[in-house]
């Protein structure tokens, strides 16, 4: 069976949703082209995706198999249709917050498609055409570091990196060693400071907590305002008040854009460009490849526009299939731009908690 051209469509074209889904189902669930993992998994689905999955809504028929990716051999995730010489860029892992990490395989054709999309996003947001990047965030097994490194190189810059191991930070906090996490974070900022002081860094890519921490040092804030043209944040949530303060008070001369993604969808999406007075942080998707739904955590039904719910992520490409992955994030459901399957999401974040727990004893 040959590859349906719609799965290999030119990078600057957007395939039509249902036709793309149908082609992807044929690819991933035909014995000649599908991955060993999905071909085996299909036996217990109770439906035939090639017949029964034709629309975006039909994706909800899939179980959430994300947890199975903790144990699967990575070879079994590569669709057979690529043949023996699939161009593997690397294997990447989830953060590991909820147990052993989940693994995905990044193939070159998907990377090219994603990078093309990202370059368009950076262009539309006025990122500098040249100059170096500083990535202060996870590298190692985490996809985000790899993607930032390649984006920088593609725009002709040097990608400087300061590596953060998020699993160590989480472990420190889980073990009640807040002081150790604090010391580690300061160690990261120290390393970043040295790069910012000595190099012509034009783009800073980091996480919201590290950005907030950078803002504690006045000298670094001055340095960033003087040198850096754009800040990309991702990997964690940013609340709208922090974004407002960063834009208006801390880094008034620097473009500030978020991205929202996950290793499990093999990428991230840039924040929608909105008017400066607009307070909502909206993320549109990379339809039909990366798509979202916002659902009621209790019923699993899609919530109304403007309501909050839990984010479900789907990845469908020639290289990989992971539909119906329920993330722990909450978000506001936002109407998508024309032609996008599924939802856009806004104000992604966890629930606010004012008090740690309900304490009854005592008068305070």
């Amino acid at each position, binding site marked *: 069976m040959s590859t349906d051209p719609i799965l290999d469509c030119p990078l600057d074209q957007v395939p039509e949703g249902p036709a793309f889904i149908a082609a992807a189902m044929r690819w991933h669930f035909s014995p000649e082209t599908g991955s060993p993992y999905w071909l085996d998994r299909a036996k217990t689905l109770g439906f035939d995706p090639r017949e029964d999955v034709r629309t975006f809504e039909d994706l909800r028929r899939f179980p959430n198999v994300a947890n199975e990716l903790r144990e699967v051999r990575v070879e079994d995730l590569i669709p057979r249709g690529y043949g023996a010489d699939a161009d593997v860029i690397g294997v990447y892992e989830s953060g590991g917050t909820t147990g052993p990490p989940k693994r995905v395989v990044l193939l070159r054709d998907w990377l090219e498609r994603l990078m093309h999309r990202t370059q368009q996003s950076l262009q539309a947001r006025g990122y500098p055409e040249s100059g170096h990047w500083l990535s202060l965030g996870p590298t190692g097994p985490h996809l985000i570091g790899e993607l930032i490194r390649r984006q920088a190189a593609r725009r002709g810059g040097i990608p400087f990196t300061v590596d953060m191991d998020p699993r160590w930070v989480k472990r420190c906090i889980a073990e009640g060693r807040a002081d150790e996490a604090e010391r580690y974070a300061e160690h990261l900022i120290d390393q970043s400071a040295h790069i910012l002081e000595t190099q012509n860094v034009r783009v800073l890519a980091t996480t919201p907590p590290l950005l*907030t921490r950078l*803002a*504690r040092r*006045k000298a670094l804030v001055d340095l960033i305002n003087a040198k850096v043209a754009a800040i990309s944040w991702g990997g964690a949530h940013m*609340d*709208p*008040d*922090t974004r*407002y*303060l*960063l834009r208006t*008070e*801390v880094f008034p001369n620097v473009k500030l854009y978020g991205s929202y993604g996950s290793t499990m969808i093999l990428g991230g999406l840039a924040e929608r460009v909105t008017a400066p007075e607009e*307070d909502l942080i909206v993320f549109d998707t990379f339809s039909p490849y990366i798509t979202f739904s916002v659902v009621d955590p209790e019923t699993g039904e899609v919530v109304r526009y403007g309501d909050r719910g839990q984010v479900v992520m789907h990845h469908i490409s020639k290289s990989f299939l992971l539909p119906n992955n329920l993330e722990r994030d909450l978000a506001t459901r936002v109407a998508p731009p024309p032609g996008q399957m599924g939802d856009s999401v806004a104000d992604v974040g966890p629930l*606010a*908690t*004012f*008090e*740690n727990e*309900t*304490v*009854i*004893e*005592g*008068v*305070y």
Partner: protein
Amino acid sequence: MDELIRLDALGAGGPYHSRSRQTITELTGTPVAELSLVPRLFVQRSMAALHEARTLPAHDRVAALTRAGRLFATGVVDGIAAEKYQHIVSRVSGMPITVVRSATSGIGRRAAEAYRTTRYARPEGAVDDWRDPLTRNGQAVWTRRGDVFAVHAAGNHPGVHTLWLEALALGYRVAVRPSRREPFTPHRLITALRESGFGDDQVVLLPTDYTVADDIIRDADLAMVYGGEEVVNKYGNDVRVLPQGPGRSKILLTGHDWETHLGMIVESVSAFGGTACVNATAVFVEGDPAPVAEAVAERLSAIPSLPPEDDGAVLPVQPVADAHAIEKYLLDHVNGATPVLGGDGVVDDLGDGSGVLRPAVFLVDRPDAPQTGIELSFPCVWFAPWSRADGIEPLRNTLVLTAITQDAGLVDRLVEDPSIRNVYLGDTPTYLMPPWVPHDAYLGEFLMRTKGVIRT
């Protein structure tokens, strides 16, 4: 309430209406106000601004505190008159309106006295200024241990906001994290302070999510934290933090003349609706405690159940679900004690979604019964037998101990024990707090130290 009251954060750059807000409801669940919650970035910038701010000269601080106290207690602040503020606090916290009224005037008075009150803590050998002629021969100068003071406030009684006024009086810049239970008092007080001469970068209100609360302490030079045992455990070893932990105030009754002290005992248990750390939660009786407990219970049971805004209200009111949670906690911890009052439950449902917490009186059979350490936010008291052979051990770990005794040797031991913070003798209620008597030592002892200055 037709329109929600807007409780902005009060940052170093002025009021801040945040996107993330917490709805404050009154006892029946009706929303009353929206409290702006600020993120970590806002906190760290506010704290940095406090560090960079200047301190007003002492006489300006005194004048501003006096003006602010008057405005707070009697004026219109942020469009809200004092009477309306008192009504809101009563309806949100469930505290009897008369208690809120006297707390309001108390805050006004204590603001005016704040600077003078700090004088009690100054060592006799110290002067305030290096220019003092005494320094020519060498002298101690009383100096601040830092510049920025943070408070994790409590919401049990508006009066908790009198103490940190002394820090302002001593020249500290102050950050207050309000309690979600009652943010109205610190908001009104800080607004009044700002209208009376303190700069926006000298006193700030930082309502935050729990996860950010520690940042306020970390970025301050010194901090005071209200809370229970967990707060003491968390900060007990941090020399920069002054925990305001459980009160566990007690009364010791020796001799046979308990009847003349009945009024004092009832008042110590029930003043302020029993919500303060200075309310007695245990009474130790030499001899048989049962007749005393029964007499106290009889008096307490006569207190009517009324909504908190009623002038006759004495008891605290809570949303009925919260009241039942407290009741369940109590009944789960009776653990063999003999109920004298409230053994079948303490909640009196007012029918509007709120419930009165009625007094509870229990008898335990030995002075070291663990129940005597249970402190709840309503009049709830444990009576235990005590004899001289039991010594002072059962009386330890106490904010205020009122002792009815003629035994000077016993009083010596009570006064010498470091875990008993205040000893009141005779018919003195535990809740008495004149400004010249330290509450849990003088705050000035924590905020200040002496520094040697010699001019030759």
